[in-house]
């Protein structure tokens, strides 16, 4: 269970009112009621919460695991000052 997954799950439970038993790395986003449009909004929240900058190119994310990997790649590739707040202190904005 990665830190990224835990923090992403916290967003989904708090802001998307999703029950924890519906969340898993292989859970399809569509099955959680998050379609391609919803994914755009989720990434908007993620950008804030993880203090990363999303590239403008569209990205195909089908499962929660895909989202976690995408976040981790961006965090790893971006300057340290943009990297996420410590676990347990998500920078929720909404």
């Amino acid at each position: 269970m990665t830190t990224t997954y835990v923090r992403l799950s916290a967003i989904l439970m708090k802001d998307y009112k999703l029950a924890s038993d519906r969340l898993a790395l292989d859970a399809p986003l569509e099955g959680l009621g998050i379609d391609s449009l919803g994914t755009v909004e989720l990434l908007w929240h993620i950008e804030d919460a993880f203090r990363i900058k999303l590239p403008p190119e569209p990205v195909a994310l089908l499962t929660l695991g895909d989202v976690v990997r995408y976040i981790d790649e961006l965090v790893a590739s971006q300057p340290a000052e943009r990297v996420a707040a410590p676990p347990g202190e998500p920078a929720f904005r909404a």
Partner: protein
Amino acid sequence: MRRVAVSGMGVISPLGNSAAQVLAHARAGRSGVRRLVTPFANRLTAPMAATASFDDVVCLEPGNARMLDRFSMLALIAANQAVQGSHGALEDVDRTRAGVFIGTGMGGTLTMDSGYQTLYGEQSDRIKPFTILMGMHNAAAAWIGIEHDLRGPNMTYSTACSSSTVAIGEAWMRVACGQLDVAIAGGSEAPLSPGSMKAWEALHTVATMDIDDPSASCRPFSKNRTGMVLGEGAAMLVIEPWDRAVARGADILGEVLGYGQSNDASHITRPSVEGQAAAMRAALDVANIEPQAVDAINAHGTGTQANDRTETAAIRSVFGNLADRIPVSATKAMHGHLLGAAGALECVLSLLALRHRVAFPTVHLQVPDPECDLDYVNNRAREGFDAQVMLCNSFAFGGTNAVLVLRQAR
């Protein structure tokens, strides 16, 4: 033309969140206008409004529910209530002959205001991705169509303060002429954003707040009236052909007899006696009734000097001496001005008045005005008033006047 029945109504409003609550509060003359408690209240000259509060949870996937501006949320809850109350109006209907007709003046203005705050106030480019989808005027109608699988015309009307009267009237025409077999029609408005409230304030149409009793600040037809009070809420009807409603054993709440319209074509804000009178005459013509058949009127009655004087003269122009015996209720004194949703809420109130044999009071009418010399049902409801036919007036900035003719179910 087919007769058109109202078989469901739903309401989320400053007077309550069901027809029963609205009826009780209107009968009692209780005002839903309040001092506004909000972080930007100190920026308002008159920090007051008629607010709606609700706990309902719209049963949508969370991802979809996040796409609703407050005006769409209000609309959807009211529409669901109306559909539920119709006891099956949407069952066994050809979905392509089922439509949605919604009026709103300001659409998702809360969302747009929030976006501008981000962009200009915070100097940030991080606009929320759903801003367009939440802000667009047709969002409420779209979500109602999605929620209830209604595949016929999905229409949104924005004619300022007559928007939802126009929406109900246009829906009535489609059902009456045989094009549709059922429609959800009404209006929704959630205009209590800082930008919107400051803009209304800047226009100098908002009432001065009564410091001793903010709930008494809107005083239609009273000589000491100072303007309107903004309100929020939604009201929806389910309408269908009378024969269909009878055949399925529906509890018919009233009948829409007709709908008339006119355009002032003169001034963008100043009301016109001729324009308002023309809309009332058009409604009577369409309903095929004479002026003497009208038993009561729900006035536009905003509480501005100009409207109330003009509307009084227009009613006199249409009804002549008959006007003296027609009770005229200005319910905005209680529920505030819901702008694009005002006509729908007042239509619901009119249907309730007909069904429950009551003329609602014009509250806070404190000082008689020689220029407003009709029977306004001053301050106290008239119980047992058995009106058969009512007019419901809505007049708008821009000049689009709309009037519904409603009849007690029989």
